[in-house]
């Protein structure tokens, strides 16, 4: 009886200790994110001293016009765009992996990013508006509609009887190839100017960030987070399998559909602004899962922070690797991030899926 009491006490004590540890990890990640954001603001092709950057941040009116424009109108939108895009893509990937019970799911691997890129290219090359009523938002709306359509195709396909995790991945690969082929066709038909714009999507770059784009992406993230947070228990329960989640009283089909719609919004908006940045949506959630497990109360904020941190750090790297030049961030995320991710997988002895 004594042994039993000890082990039971250890159970609940262990849970509390684990929760506290996870909370501290989230705080540490938030701290690292703030640091990365600060470095992102302080670095750039124009080498301003750190003291000038800080002074401009604290009191813009005291700085020269040039410094103010560089810090507030160029670096700040780019640095914030890295945070919001990273957060959006990682959250989208985390919830896709959750609802499809698939470690390979992400906006990039399942073709949602490719579809959004194709939608944007339709606007850029042919001037086709999928929603003619809002021509001024033709690029993001086209990207969103294509992403949403693709997300729904994946959703309904995944509900068909006999469809397995592997067949969903195969469908995703087929969609990636299809949209890439269509994109190549548009590139073939495009004018020189339009072609340059389309190439921008395929590489992924933050340099064209504006305050408006930051605001739209931030709104998408800010709207999505409470919607997911409200369903935290239900989303976590999905990872125990449909029959178990259903038996807990979760409306599995409804939850999947609602989540997929929000995910397509989170995936489409960043792609429509900064092009396809493929790595974050897959890896951000996996790193978050390794750190805090899959209780969505920790997993959701960890995914947001991981995605934002990875892209923010990559944004810094893209400026530091070749002094004076800013490399496309989509290229850096893959080149630097993939080896980092593999080192994490091999270093971690715990099961992470």
């Amino acid at each position: 009886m004594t042994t039993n009491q000890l082990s039971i006490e250890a159970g609940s004590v262990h849970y509390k200790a684990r929760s506290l540890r996870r909370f501290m990890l989230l705080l540490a990640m938030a701290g690292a994110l703030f640091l990365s954001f600060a470095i992102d603001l302080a670095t750039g092709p124009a080498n301003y001293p750190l003291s000038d950057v800080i002074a401009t941040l604290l009191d813009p009116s005291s700085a020269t016009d040039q410094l103010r424009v560089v810090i507030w109108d160029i670096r700040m939108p780019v640095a914030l765009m890295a945070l919001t895009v990273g957060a959006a893509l990682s959250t989208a990937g985390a919830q896709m992996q959750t609802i499809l019970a698939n470690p390979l799911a992400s906006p990039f691997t399942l073709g949602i990013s490719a579809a959004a890129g194709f939608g944007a290219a339709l606007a850029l090359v042919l001037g086709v508006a999928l929603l003619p009523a809002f021509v001024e938002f033709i690029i993001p709306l086209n990207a969103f509609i294509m992403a949403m359509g693709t997300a729904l195709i994946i959703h309904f396909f995944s509900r068909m009887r006999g469809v397995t995790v592997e067949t969903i991945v195969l469908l995703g690969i087929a969609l990636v190839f299809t949209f890439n082929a269509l994109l190549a066709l548009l590139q073939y038909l495009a004018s020189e100017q339009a072609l340059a714009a389309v190439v921008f999507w395929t590489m992924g770059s933050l340099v064209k960030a504006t305050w408006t784009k930051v605001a739209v992406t931030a709104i998408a993230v800010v709207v999505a987070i409470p919607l997911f947070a409200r369903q935290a228990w239900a989303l976590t329960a999905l990872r125990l399998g449909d029959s178990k989640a259903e038996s807990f009283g979760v409306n599995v089909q409804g939850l999947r559909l609602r989540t997929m719609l929000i995910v397509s919004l989170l995936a489409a908006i960043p792609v429509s602004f900064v092009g396809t940045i493929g790595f974050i949506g897959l890896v951000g959630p996996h790193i978050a899962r390794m750190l805090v497990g899959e209780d969505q109360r920790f997993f959701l904020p960890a995914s947001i922070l991981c995605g934002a941190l990875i892209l923010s750090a990559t944004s810094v790297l893209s400026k530091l690797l070749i002094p004076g030049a800013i490399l496309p961030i989509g290229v850096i995320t893959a080149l630097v991030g993939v080896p980092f991710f593999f080192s994490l997988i091999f270093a971690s002895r715990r099961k992470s899926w």
Partner: protein
Amino acid sequence: MVTLRLENIGTRYGKVQVVSDVTTPTIQPGTVTAVIGPNAAGKSSLFRRVAGLAKGDGIVDLGSHRKERNTICYMPQDTGSTAVLSVYESIILAAKQGSSLRVRADELARIDDILAALRIGDLAARNLGELSGGQRQLVAIAQTLVRDPKILLMDEPTSALDLHRQMEVLSFMRDVAKGQNIIVLIAIHDLNHALQYCDQAMAIRNGKMVAFGPCSDVIDSDLLRDVYQVDGHVELNSLGHPHIVLRGPSDETNSRHNTATARKTLTEVAQAAQ
């Protein structure tokens, strides 16, 4: 106080009618009912229909009790999971569905009690993926009990447990039913266990209820032959408990079945040759 009565209950799986016209007398609280029948008889589908997880015909009558979220809890058969969650977290998950994100101290204390009662406190910090099939079943029972159900539908809860654990769990469920005055229905294949631990039995075959009553009335040589296609009878063992003595698969059914299959196959072969 909750009671349970089923009236013309039916449900489909796709286009196939898997349960039809199940009507029971009123099942009283504090009782354990064994739901017996061969594989694919419709036991799980019946449970899912009663729990409201599958649509279908008929009425689930709870007497004067008003149905709430956790009034009827269904414990599905074990499927395993790749989730990176500890046993403790998975039980919190079951308890907290539909409620606030904060876990209170009294909720943790309740989980501690349930783990202690099932003697699985040592599993609390383990990851779900590390558990054996039997351990997963015990965790699933904890996940169901923590929801404080009034009617508990357990789908083969002992199928992966060793003999000692099977008896322990069934005895525990009988105590829970009596102690908390709830209704427990257990789909079970071991008829000796049904005879020993359950108050009454409901026999299902081809989606229809073929018998309902005290275990000793329902489980007899006719049921063994008609529902399970085995020859046997029930007798009292040296402890005075009813006990099944089996002779083997029912010869008549077996030979009839085999002849029919063989004849059909030969006909098909002949047709194919033409």
